[in-house]
């Protein structure tokens, strides 16, 4: 019988299709893993954004990966809002992965999310705080657009969501 921990570690191989450096585990969206005596596995995911187009794709990716395991029973995956995802659920490893993709990681423990907070985004290339917010919306729902006044580089940030 697989343990929850084993399944979780295997799911680290499943990456966010929009940010392929981060696993869905480090993104913090795997909110439930249940394994039965017969090795039937049920995984619960929570959406980052309600309109995220990668939701169903990620369900399929999880199912596909787990189905490959030897001696696995039935695999089922569902998406539920029972636990509300926030960017504080991203692991420290996840923050590194986001940075590796060229995105500024979201600030942690944001009591109040406002424009000022987004304006304080640190450049993922040169770590400068001298940056300008261009738009709170970017190429995917979870990103904002910024410009670094020091290294003169346009960059994207992962928006804090509380």
């Amino acid at each position, binding site marked *: 019988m697989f343990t929850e921990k084993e399944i979780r570690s295997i799911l680290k191989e499943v990456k966010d299709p929009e940010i392929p450096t981060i696993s869905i585990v480090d993104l913090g969206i795997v909110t439930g893993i249940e394994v039965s005596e017969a090795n039937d596995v049920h995984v619960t995911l929570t959406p980052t*954004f*309600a*309109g995220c187009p990668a939701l169903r794709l990620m369900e399929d990716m999880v199912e596909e990966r787990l189905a490959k395991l030897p001696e696995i029973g039935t695999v089922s995956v569902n998406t539920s*809002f029972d636990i*509300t995802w926030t960017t504080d659920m991203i692991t420290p490893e996840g923050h590194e992965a986001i940075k590796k993709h060229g995105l500024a990681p979201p600030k942690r423990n944001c009591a109040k999310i406002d424009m000022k907070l987004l304006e304080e985004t640190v450049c993922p290339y040169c770590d400068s705080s001298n940056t300008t917010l261009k*738009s*709170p*919306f970017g*190429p995917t*729902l979870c990103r904002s657009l910024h410009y670094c006044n020091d290294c003169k580089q346009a960059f994207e940030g992962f928006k804090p969501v509380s």
Partner: protein
Amino acid sequence: MNSIEALKELLYKMADDQLIIGHRNSEWTGIGPILEEDIAFSSMAQDKIGQSEHLYNLLHQLGESDADTLAFTRNADQFHNSQLTELPIGEYDFSLIRHFLFDFAEMLRFDGLRNSAYMPLAQLAKKFYGEIKYHTMHASTWVRQLGQGNEESKARMQSALNEAWNYALGIFEQGEGETVLQEEKIFEGEASLQEKWLNAITPILEEAGLSIPDKSTWEPKNGGRKGYHTDYLQPLLDEMSEVYSIDPTADW
């Protein structure tokens, strides 16, 4: 009206609002005045249409048809969105003002619903509230900038505000199930929401140098919640459901 019917009435109006404003927002894709705005309206469209799907899913759990059927097979008189959401995008000033007025109402609605006694809705509201906050941040930034811009930008924003105002009041048209929803602690009610909305938008409009139309001229454009719509809604629905009507099983 029993509480399930009252709940359905509430879910329908919210889901339809999200779907229709989402579709209107998407009409800016490719033609936004600057690239960032093109992206902003497209992102907000994606958020809202995604939110509408989850609200339709709740209706499906309560015995209504599935999300696609609800979105694509009803006619205008079966929709419960406020008339404000169905108006054409117009000039950018109008779209911005509508976005400002509508999204503040939305944000406050979901803020309150986070404490709804109907748990599935409270959970969705928690999620949506965090998302819509970004929409209101975007809207207030532009309202301030253009209100304080030059003479032309200010005049355009004021005229758009005058045009949109009575339609915006129509957001708060009361439903028949309102008392039941309040008794069951599912929803605070439209009157309370409207008051919070006025308190939230007034200081921002003042800061922007824009004036809310005089109270004596307020005439809410009601009817949307009961299926009475402007001539703009049916063509929007026809366009939105074009692919579905040709092939309901199409996958893309």
